[in-house]
């Protein structure tokens, strides 16, 4: 048959293979970013929870809705020493929890500087800008440190003044169940909302409210009965992450740019 000539056979084969490969690559390039966004759903869900966009303890059921919400999260990577952004190619893939176990991405901390008891400090941390249609973007920062027994991992969301706490969520801990564990309860974390990290002079002022009778200050958080050591650990890690070693210089830069 005429159509079976070698030239035509090769031509048809190449054309079909070319079109098919374009089809496949097109679909994969188009869909992979969306899939990657779904692979980090737990992490993103926590970020959305702490930013107050979704309620805590809601399961990821409404997938479509979630994808939409995930797109409101913008990730930047922060160099903790220079307090400036790093522009890596794959900020979506940067996993700070992974980087903590790598010696080349952490620096040792001296005993006096190591408030959070983490021994080594990461060079880079991801920060998340959470955009929302109803309010100004909030910034969500990962924080961690030693509680009584275990490493506590959490996120803290700040309002646009880079001072007022919009929400806090400690998603991982292994302190005493029923006591230290209560830091995960929404009862306690909601009591953080509206508190301010720094006072008017820019000093880190957030403390535990020791005396019940005193009028509640915007810098004081109620402790948890019986969980003193865990709560102290939480305050220490806040003081570490919002002190000189942590996000302080970055946040004051941001505040200055707001004023200026």
């Amino acid at each position, binding site marked *: 048959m005429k*159509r079976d000539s070698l030239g035509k056979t090769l031509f*048809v*084969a190449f054309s079909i293979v070319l079109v098919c490969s374009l089809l496949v690559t097109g*679909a*994969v390039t188009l869909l*992979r970013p969306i*899939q990657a966004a779904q692979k980090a759903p737990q992490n993103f869900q926590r970020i959305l929870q702490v930013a107050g966009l979704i309620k805590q303890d809601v399961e990821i059921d409404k997938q479509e809705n979630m994808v939409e919400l995930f797109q409101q999260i913008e990730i930047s990577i922060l160099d903790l020493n220079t307090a400036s952004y790093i522009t890596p190619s794959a900020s979506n893939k940067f996993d700070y929890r992974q980087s903590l176990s790598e010696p080349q991405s952490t620096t040792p901390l001296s005993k006096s500087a190591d408030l959070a008891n983490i021994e080594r400090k990461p060079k880079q941390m991801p920060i998340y800008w959470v955009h929302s249609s109803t309010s100004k973007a909030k910034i969500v920062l990962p924080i961690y440190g030693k509680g009584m027994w275990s490493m506590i991992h959490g996120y803290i969301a700040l309002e646009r003044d880079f001072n007022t706490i919009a929400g806090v969520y400690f998603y991982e801990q292994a302190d005493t169940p029923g006591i230290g564990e209560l830091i995960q309860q929404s009862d306690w974390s909601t009591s953080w909302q509206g508190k301010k990290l720094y006072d008017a002079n820019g000093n880190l002022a957030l403390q535990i409210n020791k005396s019940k009778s005193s009028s509640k200050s915007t810098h004081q958080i109620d402790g948890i009965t019986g969980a003193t050591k865990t709560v102290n650990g939480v305050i220490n890690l806040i003081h570490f992450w919002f002190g000189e070693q942590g996000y302080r210089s970055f946040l004051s830069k941001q505040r200055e740019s707001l004023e200026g």
Partner: protein
Amino acid sequence: MKTFHYLTKPIIENNPIGVQVLGLCSALAITQSLYPALIMATAVICVLTFSNVVISLLRHVLPSSIRLILEMTIIASAVIVTDETIKTIAPDVSQILSVFVGLIVTNCIILGRAEGFALMHNPKLSLLDAIGNGIGYSVLIILVATIRELFGRGTLLGEIIFIPSSDGGWFLENKFMALPSSAFFILGIFVWVINAKTSNRTYD
């Protein structure tokens, strides 16, 4: 034969599973509950329609010496695109369906319709034939999945229909329905019923 028959005939009378006994592998594997079966049915309809129409359009161009390879290339591309789409819009279901979406490539119904129909008919008839066969496949796996989920777990699409005895109801879960082998028996009954109703059946 009227044009419309190309669409309706494969649904019952010449059902790809019930009569041609093709595509059983996936029919056994993914019919444990209704939701994955619905997704799988949609995927098969999409792949079948795409491959049948494209192969029908190319039927005068395809060199006969490498015809099968090119048909498989087209089918495989359609399957990859479908698989990626499912992974994107329904990641949890793609976990359940696992390899079975990818295995649509080797589903006999797809290549069977391409070789047996699309190569000899125009795109319009091939489209009707693909949709007909897709619906035929879907009807059977949806029926099997409905029976298996309803009597295996007392639910449909995850909603509780029969209250299980563990929660104070009367329904005792039928563990056998959770096993792939139960699909064999259910499919067997369907094959029997379809064959009994369409008496002019011939093996070909």
